[in-house]
């Protein structure tokens, strides 16, 4: 394998990233920063799934917080009310979410554009209301307390540091699965659907099966993230899974750069840590958030990652242009 093909391989980046992630706790010892990093990890799991759906397959969802919430609530309620161990909770959450996602996805994904956006948004709000109203199970608007801390195979993850490693490993597994998925036959089929559904159909891609499949997969990612969140915070309330969070997830995908898994992680990291930076301007936080959203979209509509890439290429092109001109003058 030559150096060049090594650079091009999608796994090279993955290995660098994995090493970086596992080394971070050596440099970051502050519990608070670790806590932010854990939330970034959890969010990037959902955002990767949403990017598979939005960026690769071209189907928008404004209701993904619902799957995140269902994952968190299934495992959380089972743990708090009946003491079901987290691993069992995860399995049941995955089964529950895949049934719900499949049932909802089937009629919903026949819609396009604004109609699809509105249907997923409506689904998200309905689920949110159920979290609030089923208070004998969920504790209602004031939240669910008493979720047990994460224990897997006899190991209790009760410190921020151990939880950081757990989240990182889960996230890396999901990243690896996603890299394989997008570079496979399935990934090409998904991109074909994004390009043109009719053309993909003519070429023999079973569109509805692929769209449903990727919708269920992205819902499962969100459920895993919800499970990690519930057993980390050990307290959940509906407000974490509302419409605004769905919007934030979509924003992470778009700001990161649609159709790029690295972009998804970058977007999740940026938007999750943004409020921490913005505390400097405290009360202006929401105003600043709105301005940043709008200006990224206006000046870099392809997202920050690609936008920066384009900028670098442009600058290099200009430099090489200039040197070519210089050479011509010299001649």
């Amino acid at each position, binding site marked *: 394998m030559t150096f060049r093909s090594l650079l091009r391989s999608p796994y090279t980046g993955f290995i660098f990233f994995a090493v970086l992630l596992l080394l971070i706790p050596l440099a970051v010892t502050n519990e608070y920063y670790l806590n932010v990093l854990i939330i970034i990890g959890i969010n990037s799991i959902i955002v990767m799934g949403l990017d598979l759906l939005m960026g690769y397959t071209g189907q928008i969802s404004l209701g993904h917080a619902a799957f995140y919430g269902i994952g968190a609530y299934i495992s959380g309620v089972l743990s708090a009310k009946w003491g079901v161990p987290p691993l069992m909770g995860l399995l049941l959450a995955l089964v529950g979410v895949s049934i719900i996602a499949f049932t909802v996805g089937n009629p919903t994904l026949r819609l396009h554009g604004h*109609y699809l956006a509105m249907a997923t948004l409506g689904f998200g709000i309905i689920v949110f209301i159920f979290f609030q109203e089923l208070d004998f199970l969920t504790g209602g608007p004031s939240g669910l307390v008493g979720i047990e801390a994460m224990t897997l195979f006899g190991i209790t993850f009760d410190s921020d540091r151990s939880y950081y490693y757990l989240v990182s490993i889960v996230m890396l597994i999901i990243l690896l699965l996603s890299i394989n998925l997008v570079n496979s036959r399935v990934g090409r089929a998904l991109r074909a659907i994004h390009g043109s559904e009719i053309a993909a159909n003519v070429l023999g891609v079973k569109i509805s099966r692929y769209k449903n499949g990727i919708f269920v997969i992205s819902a499962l990612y969100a459920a895993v993230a919800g499970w990690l969140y519930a057993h980390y915070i050990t307290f959940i309330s509906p407000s974490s899974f509302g419409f605004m969070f769905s919007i934030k997830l979509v924003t992470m995908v778009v700001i990161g750069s649609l159709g790029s898994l690295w972009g998804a992680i970058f977007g999740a990291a940026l938007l999750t840590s943004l409020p921490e930076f913005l505390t400097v301007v405290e009360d202006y936080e929401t105003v600043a*958030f709105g301005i940043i*959203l709008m200006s990224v979209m206006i000046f870099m509509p392809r997202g920050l990652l690609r936008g920066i890439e384009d900028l670098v290429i442009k600058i290099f092109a200009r430099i090489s242009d200039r040197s070519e001109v210089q050479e011509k003058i010299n001649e």
Partner: protein
Amino acid sequence: MISLEQQILQFVITGITIGSIYGLIGLGFSIIYNSTEIINFAQGEFVMLGGLITVTGIQVLHLPLPFAAILAVIMVAVIGIVMDLFAIRPLKDASAITLIIITIGASIFIRGVSSFVWGKEPYTIPAFSGEEPIPFFGAVIQPQSLWVLFITIVIVVGLKQFFDRTLTGKAMIACAFQPRAASLVGIDVSYMVLLSFGLSGAVGAAAGIVIAPMSMTQYDMGVMLGLKGFCAAIIGGLGYPWGAVVGGLALGILESLGAGLISSGYKDAIAFTILLLMLFFRPQGLLGKTKGDRV
């Protein structure tokens, strides 16, 4: 003790009132969607601004209600125009997702600024003409409900005249059908888009003003109202302005009956379930006609 029939009548009256509001908000969505194919997620913020500016006009500037209302309508129309100039116009040929994010950004921005200007507490203004309920076949009608209906009818009739009778109105319809063709016959499309944002802001503000006496006006009230207006527009048929009004009334009545007869906690869930059923079984809306997709 009031009978079930009277209760149902009462729910229908409430439903018509709130449904007119949803219809007005949906009308605002449709006006912008028609000329740009943009779903403006800041539409609910226009409604909130309309209410809050009126509150300031009355309580701080001590203006009489009609002047405060006119001031609010004009200011929100200007805000709509500013939004088009600074957030929408710089993007030519942007994707639907980009435009959705932009308008969401604008709505977050407007909400943030409003939470500064007005704080987070709710405001209310006195009803336009007294609060003595009018008895009606065993049910009662709030005078403000009549105002809501009256203003809705005035706006709907006014807009119908504007789109059917004036050159500018017809030019806007032309942009909706075919922006390219419209520009070929000499219509300034970007001016029409600007106008549609202004008009949509004004209609949104009017909705915010008429409900200000009936519900608490607060910096974050726009989110749910905006979504319900969007529901109304889709239920009626996206892009059919009169559909938004029909959709709003249908949504308001069903939601009010559901809340009264089934459970008030699930009121919003009922509204969005209706939306989902509509999208699954009749996505073109109540008034829309089926049309084939072009490749």
